[in-house]
């Protein structure tokens, strides 16, 4: 039904050591299903872009590494023969060509007759809602327009996988939100195998069927966005995605005790020296409600729909608490806190 014929991608013990000896990527095994959107997420230098470039054919894995497209070894195939679409952070649009020529370039390379190129370019322009820009030069486009052209150009050749390297990083926040939605719609409708590299967790959460969180050239966790958020496998993942609160203490007689007070503790696990939880799993208790945790407000930021509180509880870092209560909070105020036991993590 679709013209796109999505393929599965597999990496087998792909490692990358650069000429200067830097180890960019530890041996990595990864399978990406046909039609799936996988997001590589991590701080800069974590190896996510290197992995993408290995899949693209722009980098070669160290000896022993293998890249498989639909089960076929393409490790030695240069990028120009891999039939993957690629979108670059800096767009990489050709300044010597118009918008239409950019989009049609891959088709020209494939020796498609020019009448068909025109039709296909027209479709692409329509799909990205940039029909009016067809004859513009690249330096006459805004950042958002450039990104749309880059996407159209990558998709025009009907690649078997779409590789996106931080495509929204160079844009401002508002435009990022708009384009994120557009890319999501696009990937869903194309059913294309897509690999998306970003350091922005919101982008990763919104777009990924699965997220691969990377750190220091290693995979820290692979999972669906919800799993990554709710069940982070490591402290790094817990801290990198969303905000995480932590309390140090000890379990004694079925109670977890810390400087701020205590909370009831289930039978298992028997012990914990540190508990972690998200801001949405802790709340400010109502006046009159009995609370076993106490803290002092260090700062309060009114955000409109809620108030973000930083609460001093005798730990290294204050707790981040979000309250939707219709009341003022003032610095130095003593408040009671309650933690939802379902949100507690022990790593």
């Amino acid at each position: 039904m679709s013209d796109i014929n999505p393929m599965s991608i597999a990496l087998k013990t792909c490692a990358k050591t650069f000429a200067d000896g830097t180890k960019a990527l530890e041996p990595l095994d990864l399978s990406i299903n046909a039609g799936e959107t996988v997001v590589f997420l991590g701080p800069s230098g974590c190896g996510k872009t290197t992995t993408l470039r290995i899949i693209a054919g722009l980098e070669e894995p160290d000896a022993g590494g293998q890249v498989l497209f639909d089960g076929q070894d393409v490790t030695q195939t240069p990028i120009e023969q891999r039939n993957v679409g690629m979108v670059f952070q800096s767009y990489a649009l050709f300044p010597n060509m118009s918008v239409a020529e950019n989009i049609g370039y891959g088709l020209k390379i494939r020796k498609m007759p020019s009448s068909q190129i025109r039709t296909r370019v027209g479709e692409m322009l329509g799909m990205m809602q940039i029909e009016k820009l067809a004859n513009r030069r690249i330096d006459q486009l805004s950042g958002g327009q450039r990104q749309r052209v880059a996407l159209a150009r990558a998709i025009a050749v009907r690649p078997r996988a779409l590789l996106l390297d931080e495509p929204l990083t160079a844009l401002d926040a508002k435009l990022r939100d708009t384009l994120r939605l557009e890319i999501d719609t696009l990937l869903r409708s194309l059913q294309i195998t897509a690999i998306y590299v970003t350091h922005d967790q919101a982008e990763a959460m919104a777009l990924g069927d699965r997220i691969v969180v990377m750190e220091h050239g290693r995979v820290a966790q692979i999972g669906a966005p919800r799993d990554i958020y709710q069940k982070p496998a490591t402290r790094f993942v817990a801290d990198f995605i969303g905000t995480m609160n932590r309390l140090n203490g000890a379990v004694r007689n079925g109670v977890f005790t810390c400087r701020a007070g205590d909370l009831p503790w289930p039978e298992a696990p028997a012990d914990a020296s540190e508990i972690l939880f998200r801001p949405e799993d802790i709340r400010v208790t109502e006046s009159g409600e009995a609370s076993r945790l106490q803290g002092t407000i260090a700062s309060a930021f009114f955000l409109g729909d809620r108030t973000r509180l930083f609460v001093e509880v005798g730990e290294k870092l204050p707790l981040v608490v979000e309250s939707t209560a219709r009341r003022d909070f003032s610095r130095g105020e003593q408040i009671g806190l309650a933690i939802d036991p379902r949100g507690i993590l022990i790593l």
Partner: protein
Amino acid sequence: MRTKWLFNLQLAFTLLVCAFLIVPVILSIMAGLTVNYLVGIESGLTLRWVMEVWNGYRNTIFLSIGISLACLVVTLLIGIPTAYVLARRQSALARAIEELLVMPVAVPGLATALALIVTYGSLSGFRTSWAFILVGHVLFTLPFMVRSVLAVLMAIDLNTLEEGAASLGASWWRRFRDIVLPNCRAGILAGSLMVVTLSMGEFNMTWLLHTPFTKTLPVGLADAYASLRLEIGSAYTLVFFLMIMPLLLALQAFAQPRLKKFVAEDDIHE
């Protein structure tokens, strides 16, 4: 007002400098067109001297044009690939190669010419041909072509553009033809103008490299200055001005920053 006074002083100074540069040019143009420069413009205007130059020295003009065009072809053929390599590899080795290539410009032309003569002077067929001069000119002008193209290649994100083209299926040759060359047009044009202009005026090397049968325009000029009357030297200089003027004007127009700055219209969805 104090700043106004300062402005006028600087303007006067600049005009003086300008006069220093331009007055002799005007004097020489006049001398080339007057019947007798000692008497002055009253002696009448004439094209006689220009004709004498044309009759006596037109071969030097043709030779200079020929050599400068040949020089352009050679510097294009070997300079653009060199600039491309230097842009692709930013290693210490690449910097060293660039440094080496500039040496014929840093080292006095006299030394380079002597070196060529002591090495190849005995190959008489080569020594007496215009190719001998061409070799010197290519050495001298090549860095200008390489630098000019390299500057443009460094300003565009060459690596990413090439990767973009490769991801669309373009082989190396297609990338070079469709992406690299068109995007360094500006550098190629500026470099070409530079090469032709410099080759046309090169004297330091050419004076030693030339033979009686391979006299270029500047060599002819030196001859004329040394042995002929001032009017003929002036007329010859006038011919030289006429030849390099279009090149210089083109170069200047080119050096000007592109005034046409397109302002991107608002993003259609914003």
